[in-house]
């Protein structure tokens, strides 16, 4: 009887290697990839014009194709919010709840194998690889709290861990698995070479925006100023785009940095108050927050004008629109750099 395993495929090298090690033992492997909304894949490339010409591949799909396996991509945006907002095990260096995230993903994979009649789960985790989620002490926590228990096998470091069911039952030969540990990438690179994998992705920090310091500062600012830790998918998408400037607690500006971002932000007309430079080439800005009073409108326009081609002119014309049909033309002198305090910039 051919045993079946589902591999958590992140798009990085480790999950690729883990899946291949198990395939080599005659196990039928399929891949699963979770979409949280914070994934680094794609978005900024799709938005920013300068990135558009580069061919951008989805690394999880690429990995699956290298392995010759099916890939199931699962939208967990809604359920994942609770992981980001209330991580039981806390955050890492930034707003990355890596341990809770791992537990959640393995738990979803466990539900998936039960529904699809698969035998066990594999991940590319390596003991000691990451400070938070891949320490020796946290490995059993992921197995236990996800409910997967000994159905969770980590082929790259299995020899450093207690035997799992696939090993105990003889579905898998333990001595053909690996005993990698620590932060060095050399063993993985050597194994990639042995398997003939080239051109694989090597994400620096982690697989998602939550490990990014500047992104995390913007998310924290959003929570602080709303007074609660909720978010919608549009919120987290907008944190990836533009300059974020907060002149006071009641609102912030998201100012496009180039044409692609201009177009992207234009798609939010009607949902946000907007500011558009009209007399000169210049950015589109969204106002996130309360409805602006006249003084705030003028300041917001002066800030936006500062990033237009008319930044050195005496007067620039902009149009401010509220969320409805009302708009007004504003003629204003762009804010001088010295009048735009550094602390207004979020991140």
């Amino acid at each position, binding site marked *: 009887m051919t045993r079946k395993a589902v591999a958590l495929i992140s798009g990085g090298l480790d999950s690729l290697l883990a899946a291949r090690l198990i395939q080599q033992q005659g196990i039928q492997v399929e891949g699963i*990839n979770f*979409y949280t909304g914070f*994934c680094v*894949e*794609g*978005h900024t*490339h*799709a938005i920013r014009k300068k990135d*558009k010409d580069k*061919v*951008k*591949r*989805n690394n*999880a*799909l*690429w990995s*699956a*194709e290298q392995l*010759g*396996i*099916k*890939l*199931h*991509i*699962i*939208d967990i945006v809604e359920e994942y919010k609770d992981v980001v907002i209330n991580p039981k095990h806390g955050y890492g260096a930034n707003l990355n709840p890596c341990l809770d995230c791992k537990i959640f993903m393995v738990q979803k994979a466990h539900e998936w194998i039960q529904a699809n009649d698969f035998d066990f789960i594999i991940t590319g985790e390596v003991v000691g690889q990451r400070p938070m989620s891949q320490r020796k002490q946290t490995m059993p926590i992921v197995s236990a709290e996800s409910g997967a228990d000994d159905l969770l096998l980590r082929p790259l470091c299995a020899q450093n861990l207690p035997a799992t069911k696939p090993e105990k039952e003889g579905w898998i030969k333990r001595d053909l698995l690996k005993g990698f540990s620590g932060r060095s990438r050399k063993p993985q690179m050597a194994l990639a070479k042995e398997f003939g994998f080239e051109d694989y992705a090597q994400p620096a920090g982690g697989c998602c925006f939550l490990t990014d310091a500047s992104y995390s500062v913007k998310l924290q600012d959003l929570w602080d100023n709303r007074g609660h830790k909720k978010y919608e998918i549009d919120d987290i*998408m907008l944190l990836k785009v533009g300059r974020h400037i907060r002149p006071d607690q009641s609102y912030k500006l998201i100012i496009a940095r180039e044409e692609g971002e201009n177009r992207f932000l234009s*798609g939010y007309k009607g949902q946000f108050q907007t500011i558009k430079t009209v007399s000169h080439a210049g950015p589109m800005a969204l106002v996130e927050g309360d409805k602006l009073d006249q003084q705030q409108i003028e300041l917001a326009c002066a800030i936006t004008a500062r990033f237009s081609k008319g930044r050195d002119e005496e007067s620039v014309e902009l149009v401010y629109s509220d969320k409805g049909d009302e708009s007004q033309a504003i003629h204003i002198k762009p804010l001088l750099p010295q009048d735009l305090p550094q602390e207004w910039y979020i991140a």
Partner: protein
Amino acid sequence: MVYSVTDSIIELDARRLFCPMPVIRLQDCINQQAVGTRIQITCTDPGVMNDIPTWCRINGHEVISSQEQYDEYILVIEKKDG
């Protein structure tokens, strides 16, 4: 999810969604269909021109056509017995 059926081709609207969401929409729709069904998906993220054909290759479905029209990307996919 927005979709409608016209002449046995299912139309999926994935405009303004970023990858991999259009792929997920296609996957969730195709999983409900019989072999031979065709699905036309309209997207605005250019990434779909790579991601949808790759997803179809690894899952055994066929891209019948793909075209760019006024900043939109339209692909027709046929469900195979992958």
